[in-house]
């Protein structure tokens, strides 16, 4: 391994020459995608720590680190929102008569599978799949990375799906995944305004639309708004939207939960580290 800066640059030039000689030309991602990715990183980083953004972003190692940071941040948001949404469904006793049976059905639910889309500003969307069964959870950015957690066993892993590496996450570590105890979270949320505001079609099926105001999520500080679409036949939510209408649309974070499937039998492997993955501790994973 080369040590001096000059040797490192010589090595880099040799690798670049070899890559050009042996590789196939690549058009790379579309410029629009690159621009939106960088913008997304800027937004996320402005809310966490200050990371230099500029030409160095082309360096893949740093880009990968940022991507993982986005994923952690996103999963924390998603978990918090899901907990808030379902806590309201579980514990709100002030719902309309029609909503009472929805609450009962949600309480009885054994598993939930859904798609979460987070829109940051205008047109920038991050999508992940979410699975909950009993006290187990999986969040997945399809084909890239996933988190699996078992609240009962108090274990959590970050899965790099491309490198087939599982990194252990200290279950109580603050700021890593911030997986809350759902029951405790449920008890904290007290929305005080829910009403039926109409009917809409979701995937060609008629649904009842409920709205909850003054939702307290993340930085919304009681200014958030939640919309819940309910299938009148199954009496279960088919779509959820969490938004903050008081924030300018260009800066607003909107969370949409769709493709919701209730009580579907989920494969145990979804919540486990695959057998062909290498398991590393958090310390090992940060080493080069």
């Amino acid at each position, binding site marked *: 391994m080369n040590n001096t*800066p000059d040797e490192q640059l010589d090595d880099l030039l040799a690798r*670049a020459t070899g*890559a050009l000689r042996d590789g196939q030309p690549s058009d790379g991602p579309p410029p629009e995608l690159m621009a939106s990715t960088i913008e997304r990183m800027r937004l996320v980083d402005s809310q966490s720590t200050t990371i230099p953004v500029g030409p160095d972003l*082309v*360096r*893949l190692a740093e880009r990968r680190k940022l991507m993982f940071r986005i994923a952690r941040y996103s999963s924390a948001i998603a978990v918090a929102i899901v907990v808030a949404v379902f806590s309201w469904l579980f514990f709100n006793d002030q719902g309309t008569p029609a909503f009472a049976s929805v609450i009962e059905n949600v309480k009885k639910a054994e598993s939930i599978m859904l798609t979460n889309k987070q829109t940051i500003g205008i047109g920038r969307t991050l999508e992940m799949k979410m699975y909950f069964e009993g006290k187990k959870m999986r969040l997945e950015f399809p084909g890239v990375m996933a988190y699996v957690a078992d609240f009962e066993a108090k274990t959590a892993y970050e899965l790099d799906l491309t490198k087939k590496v599982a990194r252990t996450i200290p279950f109580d570590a603050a700021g890593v995944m911030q997986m809350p105890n759902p029951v405790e979270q449920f008890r904290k949320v007290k929305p005080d305004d829910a009403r039926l505001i109409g009917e809409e079609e979701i995937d060609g099926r008629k649904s009842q639309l409920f709205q909850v105001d003054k939702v307290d999520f993340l930085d919304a500080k009681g200014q958030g708004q939640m919309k819940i679409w309910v299938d009148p036949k199954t009496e279960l939510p088919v779509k959820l939207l969490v938004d903050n209408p008081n924030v300018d649309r260009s800066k607003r974070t909107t969370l949409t939960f769709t493709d919701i499937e209730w009580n579907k039998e989920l494969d145990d492997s979804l919540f486990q580290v695959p057998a062909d993955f290498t398991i590393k501790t958090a310390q090992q994973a940060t080493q080069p």
Partner: protein
Amino acid sequence: LEQLRVRIRERGRQTGLESEGPVDLASRDPLELAQANELAERMRTTLSEIDPRQSQVFCLTQLEGLSYDEVAAELGLTVNHVGVLLNRARTTLKERLAAFAPSQARENKREVQP
């Protein structure tokens, strides 16, 4: 660069694909492949931006494997001039590729620049 493409095509006809051996892309790390593609793309762009003579000399010697004598004959230069152009090309390319280098080398480059 166009000369290089023509030469590579000709070399492919002469040697045949089987002599290169199979390239098992599936066995390579996706991140490594992505880095190699990005490096190659940056290299390709940089070669099109630097002095054309330097670019030609670099391509013929480093990618094509021609000797200084052969390049000198090809481009109508002296052998010494080929060496000078190649050295300049390497210096320029390293400067332009420095963003991909480990942080120590990058910092060093910043310090020496005015």
